[in-house]
């Protein structure tokens, strides 16, 4: 446990999300402002303004990419270990979650804070309503474990103590779901869509 961190709850999570949005705005707005002023003062400086606007777009995209990276797949273990670990994981989840995990590699799990998508080295939390996503970097520090076991570790930790998992995990990104969706692989997008639908319902 990370004793120096206050235990997370819904309120602290909301606060961190808003702070993240504020930070993103603080990164982008100065570039946009300077681009506008520069173009107003000297229209020929448009190329420089274009570069500034590109930076205002790219920086938030890089943050979203960082968030999406938490659910990237990791190197596989041997086929037999993978099979056994996925068998155990399959025993832990229901039919729908098992099917989604088979297609995307992510396990959908409803929690008190929202709907989770649990991956091998991180998890996405879709807020109630489905619009905001928190991307958490968290894993079991054992590189030899097959993928199913890595997911099962996080899933069991989540089920045992959801707030504890949020407290331990490092927040890689928080923001609009569409921004994360653009930065994850196409194969994973159905899982995020399913989580958003579950969060809306």
């Amino acid at each position: 446990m990370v004793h120096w961190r206050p235990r997370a709850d819904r309120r602290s999570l909301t606060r961190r999300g808003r702070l993240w949005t504020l930070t993103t705005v603080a990164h982008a707005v100065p570039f946009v402002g300077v681009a506008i002023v520069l173009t107003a003062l000297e229209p020929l400086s448009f190329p420089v303004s274009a570069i500034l606007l590109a930076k205002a777009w790219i920086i938030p995209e890089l943050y979203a990419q960082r968030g999406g990276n938490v659910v990237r797949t990791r190197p596989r273990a041997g086929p037999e270990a993978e099979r056994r670990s996925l068998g155990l994981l399959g025993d832990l989840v229901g039919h729908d979650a098992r099917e989604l995990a088979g297609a995307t590699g992510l396990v959908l799990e409803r929690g008190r804070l929202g709907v989770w998508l649990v991956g091998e080295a991180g998890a996405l939390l879709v807020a109630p309503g489905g619009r905001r996503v928190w991307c958490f970097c968290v894993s079991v520090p054992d590189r030899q474990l097959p993928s199913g076991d890595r997911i099962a570790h996080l899933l069991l930790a989540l089920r045992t103590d959801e707030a504890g998992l949020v407290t331990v995990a490092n927040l890689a990104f928080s923001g609009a779901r569409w921004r994360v969706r653009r930065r994850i692989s196409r194969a994973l997008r159905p899982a995020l869509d399913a989580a958003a639908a579950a969060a809306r319902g």
Partner: protein
Amino acid sequence: MSRLVRMDHTGHSTIAEWSATDPESIEAAVAALRRELDSGAIAVVSEGEGQARQVRELPVEADMVILRRPIAGG
């Protein structure tokens, strides 16, 4: 038979098996669980979607107890 299972590089290994009607098997499972907990493992009983319970003593009535390692922020 109930099982004490450890997630490891093989996928998972069965550390002990016990039956509620067999005191010797329970005793062996309790000892195996104690060894694992002493080495830093966390014992969990899954109770369906969204539900799991951390245990420090062997729940004799459980079908399966899973041993996992602590997690950490990346």
